[in-house]
């Protein structure tokens, strides 16, 4: 008869052998060449990551888990695409669960013909795909006056990159017809916070799109399934999720998120409003905080750079706290409003080092030091102007190889 399958196991399945998030537990044979592996299709047709991979999004402790954020574990990332299951999230009313079959998009206000669209309608329009980063303008808000969080996930984890697919907003707006005098859009989400932001019409027509695709499949629930707005290069909060309504008007709506929040308070008591663009920023993700270098020798310093104003033009790396700089290698393709991976070969001599990266974008804007930034923004309190902290990040490597978050400028 047919020989039975001999599974040589080191760890038998049991309720205690629960796999980490994102994985399914499988027995681990002593020698995988001596026994058939897992049959194709046992995963039901949708794969999972290895049970040996454990990096996860980390939720920053806020007063409630329904209005909170979770950060991408950048220290484990490679390339420029963020795994969809690890894309950062910032939610104000938990993650909405929406049936796409009944979801509707309403577009009205200063339009010629108010309309409502089903998801089938939305997907029938011409589409585009763009690889863009989204960054919450609050990324790094803990780091203004003191190095606070310990890992790059903590200091920079509210930025991620996906390939987004959807319909240009200009096509939707032309469908309803924009009335003369309209200047702003309210975009509203269908979650419990019914999140709203005002978007300038010019930006909407220029390059905004309503995305339903992320890395080749539907956008994830925590990314706004079934529909989210992409506002290339603008702060993450404007990328409204679970979009259900767009209203055109002749002035901004002054919603809570663009008044109470996402405004940048300066020492003179004035606050910058509609600070939309995410300025150029870079960070070394490896080596980074909490890592330990196992001795002298070669390490590939790597990290990412991005700018809401377009392409990254160059990234320089310093290992002496910013005294001297050398150019890093940029990974093609270098795309506009997209994270760019940089790499820098480094031979560690065992002495203390301060690692920094500094990027320049296509407009010539140079990423500032924290000192340069505070010189202009001031520090109105422990978290200063809160948002748009895009300064150079410093990682100290001590003589034991331990890497930590420091302020050095």
């Amino acid at each position, binding site marked *: 008869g047919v020989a039975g399958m001999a599974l040589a196991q080191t760890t038998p399945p049991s309720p205690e052998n629960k796999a980490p998030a994102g994985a399914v537990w499988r027995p681990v044979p002593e020698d995988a060449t001596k026994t058939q592996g897992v049959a194709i299709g046992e995963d039901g047709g949708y794969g999972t990551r290895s049970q040996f991979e454990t990096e996860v999004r980390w939720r920053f402790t806020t007063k409630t888990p329904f209005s909170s954020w979770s950060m991408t574990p950048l220290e484990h990332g490679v390339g420029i695409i963020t795994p969809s299951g690890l894309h950062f999230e910032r939610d*104000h009313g938990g993650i909405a669960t929406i049936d796409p079959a009944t979801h509707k998009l*309403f*577009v*009205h206000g200063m339009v010629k013909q*108010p*309309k*409502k*669209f089903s998801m089938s*309608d939305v997907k*029938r*329009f*011409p589409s585009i795909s763009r690889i863009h980063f989204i960054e919450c303008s609050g990324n790094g808000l803990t780091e203004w*006056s003191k190095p606070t969080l310990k890992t790059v996930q903590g200091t920079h984890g509210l930025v991620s990159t996906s390939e987004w697919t959807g319909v*240009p907003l*200009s*096509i939707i707006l*032309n*469908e309803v017809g924009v009335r003369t005098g309209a200047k702003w859009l309210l975009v509203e989400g269908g979650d419990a916070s*019914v999140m*709203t932001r005002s978007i300038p019409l010019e930006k909407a027509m220029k390059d905004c799109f309503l995305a339903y695709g992320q890395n080749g499949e539907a956008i994830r629930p925590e990314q706004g399934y079934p529909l989210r707005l992409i506002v290339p290069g603008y702060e993450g909060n404007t990328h409204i999720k679970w979009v259900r*309504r767009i*209203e055109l008007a002749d002035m901004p*709506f*002054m*919603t*809570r998120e663009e*008044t*109470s929040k996402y405004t940048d*308070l300066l*020492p003179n008591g*004035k*606050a*910058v*409003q*509609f*600070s*939309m*663009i995410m*300025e150029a920023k870079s960070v070394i993700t490896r080596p980074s905080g909490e890592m330990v270098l196992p001795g002298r020798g070669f390490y590939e310093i790597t990290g990412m750079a991005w700018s809401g104003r377009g392409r990254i033009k160059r990234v320089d790396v310093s290992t002496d*706290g*910013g005294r001297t700089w050398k150019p890093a290698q940029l990974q093609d393709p270098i795309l506009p409003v997209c994270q760019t991976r940089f790499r820098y070969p480094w031979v560690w001599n065992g002495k203390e080092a301060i690692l920094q990266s500094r990027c320049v974008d296509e*407009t010539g804007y*140079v990423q*500032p*030091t*924290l*000192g*340069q*930034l505070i*010189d202009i923004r*001031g*520090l*109105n*309190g*422990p978290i*200063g102007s809160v948002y748009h902290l895009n300064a150079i990040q410093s990682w100290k490597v001590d003589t034991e190889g331990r890497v930590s978050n*420091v*302020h*050095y*400028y």
Partner: protein
Amino acid sequence: ISADAIHYNFGEPASANDLKDFVSPLPDGRGLPAGSGTIAHGKQIYEEKCASCHGQKLEGGLGDRLIGGRGTLVNDDPKKAPIKTVESYWPYATTLFDYIKRAMPFYSPGSLTNDEVYSLAGYILSQGNIIKNNDPITSENLAKILMPNRDGFIPDHRPEHFKPADKNPQLR
């Protein structure tokens, strides 16, 4: 494809009925739904539905602090935190109506009537010494309320032009 030229005729017309429950007022009052409320009623609702998170004295808790903080915005001391509240920081009263209407109470958002929301807005603004009488708060007068921080916002002037970086960087 010239986006201007083509109408695809996808979707359906949205009727007034389709749109009637959407609320998003403009800062000048247009779009506020018809209705009115009183400070007394607002106090009642607040104590019943809001105080558990925002505090009996609107001092905050699970939810944000709602009043106080005037005069704390001018500050360059990193050790002193400014107190940004509805009273001290919000530029428009219409935002208060809008946000309560769509998002509060936290666990039953969108459950309040328009009149209730006018009442609550009135109560909070009264507690913040922005409304100084007991008149009804209505769709007609809400937008006229001048918030203390109306002029507190400036436009974005970035990209910033930085001074040169410190030539002697050091651990801070």
